[in-house]
């Protein structure tokens, strides 16, 4: 056998799967080194939960339950919108996307890594909320409901990843945090994540189905029986549709 083998005679020995795993692992580690992302996205839902779900609602168990679900959704929103919107905008502007296109990175590894990271981060936020809810909030749920709620919060990041990605392709790195915040905070309020919709003016409640966060929250609330009674299939359908729509729009922007 020849010891000198032309590099391209070995394509079968090359495992791009390792690249996908490393891409995600290093994205995750980079994220944890970014306090401007970690602190607001992880701590805001937890702080709000302690404040509004525990301290200001002594003796009202429903609020602790309701806000566990909706702050889990709020956390997922933040993980998806900031994790994609801000980082894609910055990295696109700085030329990382161009550089990656010149490298033999396996297709989609960049976005897949960000998606996995956002799902993990949303799960971490929910885990923190769950600990606070079970200890301080007096929330007690069957194991299956805990698990299902965790799953809904984790997977619910995907539509927000797609929206964030689209924002990231539209605006620059400097403007992205502002644009994301302008969407993030009002949408959270108008979707009933901070206060149940029945406590809000009826026109706000009536408009809520426009927002993806409303549909995500309704699914999470359905797990613990506090939802508004909408059809599960409709909520899921809207979220899937939004994910596909914004991913396609972003793809067009990136290709153009």
């Amino acid at each position, binding site marked *: 056998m020849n010891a000198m083998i032309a*590099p391209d005679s070995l394509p079968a020995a090359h495992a791009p799967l390792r690249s996908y795993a490393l891409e995600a692992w*290093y994205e995750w580690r980079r994220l944890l080194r970014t306090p401007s992302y970690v602190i607001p996205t992880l701590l805001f839902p937890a702080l709000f939960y302690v404040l509004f779900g525990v301290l200001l609602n002594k003796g009202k168990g429903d609020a602790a339950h309701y806000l566990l679900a909706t702050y889990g959704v709020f956390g997922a929103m933040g993980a998806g919108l900031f994790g994609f919107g801000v980082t894609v905008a910055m990295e696109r502007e700085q030329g990382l996307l161009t550089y990656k296109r010149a490298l*033999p990175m396996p297709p989609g590894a960049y976005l897949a890594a960000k998606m996995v990271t956002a799902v993990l981060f949303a799960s971490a936020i929910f885990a923190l909320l769950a600990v606070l809810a079970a200890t301080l909030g007096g929330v007690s749920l069957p194991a299956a409901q805990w698990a299902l709620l965790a799953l809904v919060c984790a997977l619910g990041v995907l539509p927000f990843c797609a929206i964030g990605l689209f924002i990231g392709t539209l605006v620059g790195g400097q403007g992205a945090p502002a644009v994301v915040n302008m969407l993030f905070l009002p949408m959270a309020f108008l979707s009933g994540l901070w206060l149940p919709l029945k406590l809000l003016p009826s026109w706000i409640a009536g408009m809520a189905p426009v927002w993806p966060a409303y549909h995500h929250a309704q699914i999470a609330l359905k797990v613990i029986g506090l939802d508004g009674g909408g059809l599960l299939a409709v909520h899921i359908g809207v979220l899937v549709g939004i994910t596909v729509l914004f991913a396609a729009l972003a793809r067009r922007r990136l290709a153009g």
Partner: protein
Amino acid sequence: MTSQPLPTPATAPLARLHGVRKAYRTLTALDGVGFSIRRGEVLSVLGANGAGKSTSIAVLLGLVAADAGEAEVLGLAPGEIAARRRIGVMLQSAGIPENAKVAELLDLTRSYYPNPRSVADCVAMAGLDGLMDRRYGRLSGGQQRRVQFALAICGNPELLFLDEPTTGLDIDARQRMWATIRELVAAGTGVLLTTHYLEEAEALADRVVVLDRGRVVADGGMDEVRARVSQRRIRCLSALDVARVGTWPGVRAASRDGARIEVVADAAEDVVRRLLAEDPALTELDIRRAGLADAFLELTRDTDREAA
């Protein structure tokens, strides 16, 4: 040793542009550019800002689609992943994330390639000793450049794109990078080098392509391109009147700087003979052929005149 056929014949160019045109709205970036890069050779692409260097590279990397013409990298269309697995890239601004550690960047980039260089080799060749645990954003400009160089060579590429590789490096680090590039080229790697430092092109390049306003104005061996400008610079200490020397046949220009005069001539011999004859007191005679910098200025000045 049994011989194994190489993926592309050793004589075929590693990459090639032919008649490539690219326009951005109103600006014509490339107006029929053609050149090729061969194995074991450094091709230096020179040109002022906006001459078309970056666009040429972008076409070869598959980042920009040509409007017309042919582009080929390792026998494949630019940008195909099979082609990308055999090239290494060092761009001017890579946008490498500042919160990534050097070891992570190297590990990840190596994973993209089927037959990467060992980490130890990358560290030694790019001079990354002691940097592996550091965050990229906390490195000096020169150190970042070395990391980018390591990422470019970590995949054992057959073809290396180096866009302004030594910007921000101190003299010592630049010399070391040059030595590494020469080693790679001796082992058969083809290199496309763009640089603002003409002495860098002179030190490394076997061939030179000069671009001006999206066109190739010179393409040939380093000596050939230099010979396109046949002028000589003659310097000496002399009391001769430069205004009169300037009128001699074969003299293009003559100037005085203190006791020293400088004469630019098409051919040195006749002018030197006359200088020595007219001024027996002449000392410190020094004759140089035009450097690449002179050739470059001359070539692009010609097109200025044509355009005017």
